[in-house]
Every structure is written in structure tokens, then in C-alpha cells.
């Protein structure tokens, strides 16, 4: 309770209330996250259960009864007779899950490695930063393609669907950790020579404790900003990978897979198969980006 009232009274919250863009972005993000979470209860259909679909419902126009089955779908149906509205909700779940997990993975991995590299220095630092170089050498899409390829090689064919999502998370996460590592390492290099850390060292605190208690909190600001922007990037990256044919499986599509499928219908007039998933992705990525932007400015003491 106290934490909440503290937060409500805080400078950050005040600045948040004063920024209409941030408030709108927050509301949109929250709405999207909530509808993804409660998709099974909101969606009129479970598009991930192929046996329940009727192919003849395919390409129904939004709000117009299907000529064969007479069923009506608010946002129309896609080429498999899936209700676009339900598919978006379920796809949003996959996209958000992949995005959040990938960023969490990258953040934890990158921060830990960056902290160790910056604090320990010497050979450890060299090795970690050289690994980061290798990582940077492969552009994100290539890393993801590579991991996808290897995962496909080592998992038996029958499990590929189950692992596909986890491979995506691993692939996007692995291509993203270097940013966190660099920022945290940079901040650690600055902090470690400051008097308070030196003092902590002198009174005999363990390196781990110093890192966690004193250095990490000081890097939280920039890490949070990177994390927010990475979330938007990760969701887009998943879509891009889907275009290259290594995204979420078509029977359990993410927003990116839906857009990849939908772009095939751009010229044919079935605009709804592309438009609604694209607008959803745009709304999600845009509001997360705007939140990240606002957060960056708000946490930057020099800009107050």
C-alpha cells in the first residue's frame, strides 16, 4: 500500500500524468496485454483448434454473412476460415509472450555478463566482450536464422511445433543481449571507480554483494529504457523472421505470421486479413515505443 502511495506521489508518476502521449500509450498497451491474457474468454472461436474450423467459412467479409455457411464474423475470416478477430487475440498472446520472454532473457543474460565484465575487468572482460563481438558480427536476423536451423537439427521432427516458440525466444533474445551487456558494462566501469564502491570494497564487502547492491541499481534506468524499446523490436523481429519462413507455425500464428499470410491478399481485395493484424501490431509496437521514449526522457536527469 505504502509503495503504491509512494509511487502515486512520486515525481515519475507526476510527469506521467502530465504527458498525454504517455497516458494514451499506456492505456493502449494495457488494453492489448489484457485482451491477450483473456483471449480464450473474449474470442468467439479457438483458432488454434483446427478440427473446430470450417474451411468453407474462408474469406468471409467483415460483418457480411458467409455465402456458404451463413455465419457472420465481425472482422472477417482468413484463408482457413479462421475468425480474424479471434486469431488476432490469440496471435497477440504469442507475439507478446515471445517478445516479453525474449527481452527478459536478453536482459538477464546481458546485464549479468555486462556486470561481471565491467566489474572484474581483465581477461574475463576481454572474453565476454569478444563474445559480444562475435554476437554483433552476426546481425540479429542471421543469429535467429542460425539458432532456428540448429534447433531444427537437434529436435526430433515431431516436437518441432512445441519447440518453435521457444526457439524464437532464444533466437531473438540471444541476438539482443549485447546491448544490455554494453550499457551495464559501461555504467559499471564508471561506477566501480567511484568512492562509494571503493569504500565498500575497503570495508570488505564481497564483489557479488557490491555488484548487486550498489552497481546494479544505478544501471536500472538505462536498462529499463532499452528493455522497453527491445520489446517493440523483438515483436517486429518475430514478424520479420516469419517473412523469412522461420516464425511461429501457421497453425498457431503470431501477429507476425498473420501479417506474412495477410500480405499475400493485399492486391486481391481481402484487405481485412492484412489490415487488422497490421493495425494491432502497429498499435502495440507504437505504444510500447512511445512509452520507452517517454521513460528515457523522464529518467534522464539532465532533461528535467
Amino acid at each position, binding site marked *: 500500500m505504502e509503495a503504491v502511495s509512494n509511487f502515486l506521489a512520486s515525481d515519475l508518476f507526476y510527469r506521467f500524468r502530465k504527458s498525454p502521449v504517455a497516458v494514451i500509450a499506456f492505456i493502449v498497451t494495457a488494453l492489448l496485454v489484457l485482451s491477450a491474457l483473456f483471449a480464450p474468454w473474449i474470442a468467439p472461436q479457438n483458432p488454434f*483448434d*483446427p*478440427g*473446430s*474450423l470450417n*474451411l*468453407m467459412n*474462408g*474469406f468471409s467479409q467483415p460483418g457480411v454473412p458467409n455465402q*456458404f455457411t451463413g455465419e457472420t464474423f465481425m472482422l472477417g475470416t482468413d*484463408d*482457413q*476460415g479462421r475468425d480474424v478477430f479471434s486469431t488476432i487475440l490469440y496471435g497477440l498472446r504469442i507475439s507478446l509472450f515471445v517478445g516479453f520472454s525474449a527481452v527478459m532473457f536478453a536482459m538477464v543474460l546481458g546485464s549479468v555478463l555486462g556486470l561481471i565484465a565491467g566489474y572484474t575487468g581483465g581477461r574475463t572482460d576481454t572474453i565476454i566482450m569478444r563474445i559480444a563481438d562475435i554476437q554483433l558480427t552476426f546481425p540479429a536476423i542471421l543469429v535467429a536464422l542460425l539458432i532456428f536451423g540448429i534447433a*531444427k537439427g537437434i529436435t*526430433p*521432427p*515431431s516436437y*518441432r*511445433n512445441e519447440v518453435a516458440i521457444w526457439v524464437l525466444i532464444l533466437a531473438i533474445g540471444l541476438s539482443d543481449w549485447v546491448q544490455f551487456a554494453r550499457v551495464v558494462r559501461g555504467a559499471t566501469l564508471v561506477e566501480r571507480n567511484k568512492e562509494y564502491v571503493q569504500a565498500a570494497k575497503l570495508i570488505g564487502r564481497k564483489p557479488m554483494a557490491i555488484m548487486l547492491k550498489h552497481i546494479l541499481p544505478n544501471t536500472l534506468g538505462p536498462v529499463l529504457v532499452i528493455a522497453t524499446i527491445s520489446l517493440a523490436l523483438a515483436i517486429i523481429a518475430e514478424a520479420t523472421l516469419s517473412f523469412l*519462413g522461420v516464425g511461429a*507455425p*501457421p*497453425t498457431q500464428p503470431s501477429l507476425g505470421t498473420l501479417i506474412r499470410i495477410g*500480405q*499475400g*491478399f*493485399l*492486391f*486481391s*481485395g*481481402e484487405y481485412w486479413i492484412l489490415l487488422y493484424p497490421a493495425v494491432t501490431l502497429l498499435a502495440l509496437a507504437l505504444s510500447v515505443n512511445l512509452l520507452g521514449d517517454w521513460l528515457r526522457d523522464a529518467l534522464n536527469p539532465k532533461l528535467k
Partner: protein
Amino acid sequence: MSKRSKILGLLLTTAMVAGTSVFASAETLRWARAGDSLTLDPHSQNEGPTHALSQQIYEPLISPDMEAKPIPALATEWMVKEGNANVWVFKLREGVKFHGGEDFTAEDVVFSFNRAKMESSDMKELLVTIKEVRAVDDYTVEMETEGPNPILPNNLTNLFIMDKGWAEANDVTKPAEFDDGEETYAVRNANGTGAFMLESREPDTKTVLKANPDYWGKGQFPLEVTEIIYTPIQNAATRVAALLSGEVDLIQDVPVQDLDRVAGADGLKVGNAPQNRTIFFGINSGDADLENDNVEGKNPFADVRVRKAMNMAIDRDAIKQVVMRGQSAPTGVIMPPFVNGWTSELDAYPKADIEAAKALMMEAGYGDGFEVTMHCPNDRYINDEAICQAAVGMMGKIGITANLVAQTKANHFPLISGKKTDFYLLGWGVPTFDSEYVFNFLVHSTTDDRGSWNGSRFSNPEVDAMIQSLGSEVDLEKRNETIAKIWQVVQDEQIYLPIHNQVLNWGMKSNIDFPVQPEDQPHFKFMKFN
């Protein structure tokens, strides 16, 4: 008429035709399709887009026309030698010159066939039965086969003739080996007898062909195209955009959903034709247990009732209506109608009947269904991934949970040849137009030289013997009876689940008069402009 005066006459007519064609307007055709030809070497790759480009520059003895019917090209007539059923005789066209000016003679045919039979040739499987090719005189060639081979000419329509002297001068007397370590001259240079000559080539980017002013076919073919600019455009949406915006004149591979848009656009039209390719599902009925299912210790597909139930569960009409937008011909057999052995009875397919299928599943002891992995390519056939998705739904209705793994063809096909998939999508064309081809690859047990695509693991010694007998059976009636018998087994055992025959769609400018060719192989010498 002596040979000399014959040539003279030919030269005269050529000169006359050439004289008139000066006044014909120059027509440039900008042609695009999804993939580029892989090489200009005519014997290195047995692959559609590669042959399609080669057909403009090089010529075979017998060429497919725009209906894929064989017509005389470099051979004017061919027949089985009197008194020896093992020998085919080909009479060659006289007075033909290669683009470089060399005369075409029997020597070039012998050379080209020997080249195509070499280890590094990708065409050698089609010539397996040929023992020897010999020149009788300058314009007669004999081909001796292992036994009688009544359908040999069918195998020769993509077998191009090169000039022996040119090949020797440029050190390309054999097709490139994969471990040669360098580029051979024939990969990007060509010297054929065809209606078009190579002007320039940048692989994957742009290939320019110019009309051959000395083509032998003047007067026989329209030959209205004077220049061809060929650009591969991989991304389907971009390809359609290029046609809609008028940047290209003809595209192959129009996505089915864009047909209406193209047909409705000003100055554009769509042509279509049934393709020589059947799409079907393969199921592993031969193994004792499956690797990719959840049934322990036995193979549910081994029970013919399960296979029949699956066949009944597939709603081919719905797939045609929705997934293919009407652009397919549903079928009950894994061969297109062009093929010798096809009958409308075989082609008939059952209406989807979920209740009856469920009953069959129950009878087979799988009333509660089972789980299995389905493998599918996503960049090979028209809407391949969507067909599989639809099939997953249909299987779901009779309790079979199919987990779909859709991947690129480079990952998909090794699963079939390596016998690592139990339920997969495959498309099959029959270039020889004869059932034997289908049986050899898809029905015969897997041995060193047969059954390499038989992912069903179906194996029956009696059927194998019948298939082997087809190769040398000269009595065509008896041969056709055997073919019918084998098809009966294939259908009764429900070794495969046929879906449909593909339909080809080409989008083009309205002023182009050009039929769609069932092999997806345009022959631009036939093209006319209105």
C-alpha cells in the same frame, strides 16, 4: 530433288521470309517468373525453369508444343527400326545452322546424347535404357536400347542438342561436375539452333535474348517476338505488382488470389491450363511402428480402414473452392489426365463423409483417434502450406490430431527420400506421360534404381514384378492391362491420398495471344500479338 538444290531452295525461302520480316514491328517481350534458370548448360539440371529458358535457345530432336504434344524439331520423323524392336531411327532436319553458323548434323546428336549420358549429367536417368547412339549418315541417327522401349521419344523433349565443334573448342564436352572448382564456359554461354539467341545473361537478374535471323522455322511459327527480357522476381506480391504497373508483359506463377485483380486490370488478362502435376499426401503404411505418432508398438496407417477413413475425411471440393479459389481439379488418383493409364473411374473421388469416416476409424479401433506429425513444404507447390493446414482441420474432425511442420523444400524433400516422415505432402509430374514413370518412383519398393520417392513404404513383390515388366513389354495392349492392374492395387490399398491436379495461371498483356502450356514451359516462337 538433289540435296544441293533442296538446301538452295531452303536458303531462298529463308531469304524471302527474312526480307519480309524487316517490315514487321519489333516486339520486345518482358517475361518474369519466380525463379531463374540455374544454368545454360543444357544437361546440367533437369529442372523446370532451367529447361524453360533453354527451350528458347536450344532445341531437342522432338519438342513439346504449347499443348505439350510432341512435334518435330531437329528430327523430322522417327520410327522403330524395321526388324529390330530395340532400335529407334531418327531422320534429322537438314539445313539447320547453330547460332554460331555451324551446320547441324548427326555428329552433333551423337555427341549431345553421349554428353547427356555422362555421370555428371542430370538428364542421364531419362536415357538409362539407351545402349548406343550412332550416326548412320549426316542426317540419320539410330538409338539402340537395352530392350524394346516403346516410349523412348517421350523422354527426349528436353534433351537439347549442342554443337560438337563449339563444345570441343570451349572445353565443355562434359557437364560440369560439382567438384570441378571452376565455372565451365557453357554455364553462361550458349550456342543452340533455337528461335532465340543469347544476347546477355546476368544470373538471377536479367537475361536478354534476340530473335535468330536464320531460324529454320521461319514461316512455320509466328516468330513475332524479336527480343525477350527475362527477369526472375521471387516475391509473389512484387511479381504481381510488376505486371499491374506495366513493367513486365508476362508472368508465370500468378498467386491464385490475385487472378481476379489481374484479369480485371486494364490491358491485362489471365490464361490458364491444367498442369501436369498431381498434389497428394503420402502415408507410411509399410513400417511396423511409426516414429512420429503417439500410438505405441503399432502403425495406425498400416490398417487400410484408417487410410480409407482419411481419404473420406478430405473435403477436396472445399480445398478447391477456398484454398485454391477454384483453380484446381480435384482427383482420386495420383496422376493427371494426360497420362497413359488414366481413366475417369480412377479419377473419381469420394465426397467428404465425416460420419462414415468416423465409423471406419471406430471399426479399426481408433475411435479415440491418435496424434501424428504432418510434414509439408511451404515454397514448392501452389498454396502448399494452406492445403496442409486445411487437411489438418479435416483430420481433426475424425480424431486424428496432425501436428503440422511446414518448412522449405530443401528441408522437406530429404525427409521423404530419407524415409523420415510418416505423413507428408508431395506433388508429382509425369514428363513421360506414362504410368510406368509414376510406378517406378512412387509405388515400386525402394531399391537402388527404383522407388526413390516411395515414402509410403508400400512394398509388394508381385506389384514390383508387374512394374518391372512394363519397361520391355512391346505389346501395348498387354502393357496397358498390366498398368490398369497396378492402379487397381494402388487404389484398393489407398497407398496415397490424392488431392488435386494443379492449374497453371499466367498473367499477360491483353494484346498477347499465347496459350498456357501444361508443363509451365512457354515457347515464345509461338507467341502472337494482336
